[in-house]
C-alpha cells in the first residue's frame, strides 16, 4: 500500500465539522484526507457516546499496591531466615539418618530380645547398650519438635 502524504491533512483534521468550501472540495478529492476525516469523526462519535458508570476507587488501588510492596519487602528480609531454617532441616534429617543407620543392628538386636519369655530379661540386658542411643534420640527429638513448633508459628 502506497502512503499518500497530504499537506492539508492536519488542517482538515483540525477543522473537523467546520470545513471551508475549498477544504470540503479537497477532502472529497483526496483519499488520504477523506479517510482521515471519516475515521476522525467516527472515533469522536465513539468517544462521545460512552455511558459512564462509577470508576474503580483510587484509594483501593493505592492500598493494594502498598500491601504488595510491603509483602515483597518483608519476604526479602525473611529470606536469610528461611534459608537458615531449610539448612537446619537438612542437617537434622542427615543426623537422624546417621543415627538410625549406625544403630540399626543394635536396635534389631534389642527388639529381638522382646520375645515373650525373654521380655523382662531382654529389656534389662539391652539397657547399657541403648543408653547412648536414647540420649541421641531424645536430643534429636527435642530439636525436631522445636523446629516443628517454629514452623507452626510461621504458618500462623
Amino acid at each position, binding site marked *: 500500500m502506497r502512503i499518500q502524504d497530504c499537506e492539508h491533512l492536519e488542517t482538515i483534521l483540525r477543522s473537523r465539522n467546520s470545513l471551508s468550501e475549498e477544504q470540503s472540495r479537497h477532502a472529497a478529492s483526496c483519499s488520504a484526507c477523506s479517510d482521515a476525516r471519516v475515521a476522525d469523526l467516527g*472515533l*469522536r462519535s465513539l468517544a462521545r457516546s*460512552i455511558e459512564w458508570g462509577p470508576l474503580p476507587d483510587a484509594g483501593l488501588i493505592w492500598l493494594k*499496591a502498598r500491601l504488595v510492596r510491603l509483602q515483597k519487602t518483608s519476604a526479602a528480609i525473611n529470606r536469610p531466615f528461611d534459608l537458615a531454617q531449610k539448612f537446619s532441616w537438612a542437617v537434622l534429617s542427615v543426623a537422624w539418618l546417621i543415627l538410625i543407620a549406625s544403630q540399626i543392628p543394635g536396635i534389631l538386636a534389642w527388639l529381638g530380645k522382646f520375645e515373650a519369655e525373654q521380655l523382662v530379661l531382654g529389656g534389662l540386658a539391652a539397657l547399657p547398650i541403648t543408653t547412648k542411643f536414647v540420649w541421641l534420640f531424645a536430643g534429636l527429638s527435642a530439636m525436631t519438635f522445636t523446629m516443628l513448633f517454629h514452623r507452626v508459628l510461621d504458618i500462623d
Partner: protein
Amino acid sequence: MAEQLIASRQATETRRNMVSMTEPDFELFYRRHSRALWAYIYRTTGDAALADDILQRAFFQFLRAKHDSNDDTRLKAFLFRIAYNLVVDDSRERKREASYLSNNLPEESSRPKPEMSWDMQRAFDRLKPKERALLWLAHVEEMSHREVAETLALKERSVKVLLFRARKKLASAMRDHGLDSEVKR
C-alpha cells in the same frame, strides 16, 4: 524491629530506584487520567467489565513500576502503554479460548449503547488491537506522533505509515456500514 527494617529498606529502595508518588499525587493523577484510560480500554476491548478490570491492573502496575520522570505527559504515555499491553495480552488469551472462537466479537456490555455507536464499535472492532490503539491515541487522546510512538513502543516514522493504513481500514469499514455519511451530519 522487623517494621523498622521494612521501613528502612523501603526508603532505600525509593531513593535508589524511582521518583516516588505519594498517595495524594496518585489520586490527582488518577482523577486526571482514569476516565480517558477507561474510555480507551472500553473502546478497544468493547467490554465495560473488562475495562474496569484492566484499568485497575494498569494503575496497579503503574504504581509498582519504576518511573524515572515526574512529567505528566510521559507518565500518561507510560500508563497507556501498560494498558495497551494488558489489552493485547487479554485479546491473545481470549483467542486461545475455544468459546471465544465461536463468537469473535466482544460481548455486549450491560450498559446501553445508541445504535450508531454500536455499529461504529463493530467497525472499530474489525481493526487489529494495535490499529485501534493507534487511532484512539492519535484522534481521541490527540497525542502527537512522538507520544504515540513512545506509548506503543514504535518508531516515530512507522507511526505515520501505520496510522495511514489504520485510517484507511476504519474509513472503509465505516463506508461498508454506511456510517461515513452518518458521522458527517
